[in-house]
């Protein structure tokens, strides 16, 4: 791979930033779902950050795409940004980039129209995030020599590990989820446990014992 034009550098740089942003977006998305919080920040910050960073990521990807197209060293048709495998240069890896971008566009468009569309459909499309990130990651590793060595490789692996941990956390919660039909029984059980602990600790206070959970 040659080309030391400013466009080429810009494309590589914005691509790397986009990967970092997308990692953050995915993690924040999981955080929203799990009602997690960032220390010191209000609840709405997690939601706002997830949405705003996703738009920022797309902005960086737009620059990433346009600068790659404008660079004249290799010919990359603009259309190949959204039509997979339409580029002669690095057909496979750029194709993956297009697939990932298509999924992101679907997620963002449906999220903007969320109030007007079927909930289940919105959710199904939003779940594409779990496909879009690894595909984008593969696009990055495969098409850029930068990410294949040195500190950039370390950084890319770091992102992958963060995503893996977040996804495992999400899956673990899904596995623990009580199905709807069992929820009432779960509340009964939880309430009984709480009240019997309260009674036990009250009795313990009278007798001077400590109650362990």
């Amino acid at each position, binding site marked *: 791979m040659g080309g030391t034009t400013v466009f080429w550098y810009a494309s590589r740089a914005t691509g790397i930033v986009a990967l970092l942003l997308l990692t953050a977006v995915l993690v924040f998305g999981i955080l929203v*779902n799990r*009602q997690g919080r960032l220390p010191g920040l*209000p*609840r*709405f910050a997690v*939601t*706002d950050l997830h949405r705003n960073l996703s738009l920022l990521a797309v902005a960086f990807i737009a620059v990433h795409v346009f600068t790659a197209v404008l660079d004249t060293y290799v010919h990359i048709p603009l259309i190949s940004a959204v039509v997979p495998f339409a580029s002669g240069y690095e057909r496979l890896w750029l194709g993956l980039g297009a697939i990932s971008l298509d999924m992101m566009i679907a997620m963002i468009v449906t999220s903007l129209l969320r*109030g007007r569309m079927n*909930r289940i459909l919105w959710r199904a499309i939003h779940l594409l995030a779990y496909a879009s990130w690894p595909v984008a990651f593969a696009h990055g590793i495969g098409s850029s020599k930068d990410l294949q060595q040195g500190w950039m490789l370390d950084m890319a692996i770091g992102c992958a590990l963060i995503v893996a941990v977040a996804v495992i956390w999400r899956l673990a919660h899904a596995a623990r989820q009580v199905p709807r039909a069992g929820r009432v029984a779960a509340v009964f059980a939880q309430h009984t446990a709480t009240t019997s602990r309260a009674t036990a600790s009250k009795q313990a206070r009278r007798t001077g014992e400590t109650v362990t959970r």
Partner: protein
Amino acid sequence: MADTLKVNPIDCTGHGVCAELLPELISLDEWGYPIVDPRPVPPVLDREARRAVAACPALALKLMRTEEPARSA
């Protein structure tokens, strides 16, 4: 013609974002679910109300015309 805030309790999973953004009209019960003021939104809070509606991660909060939705037994 004022609007009223309503929560779809089926969609609501108790994120609590609405209560943070609009504490004047929304508070949380002991389980984390929103208790919404049933009166029409005062005009001065209209923008905040719309922001809360947009911010709900479950899209459970809605701004509706003042007619109460019917609930049958």
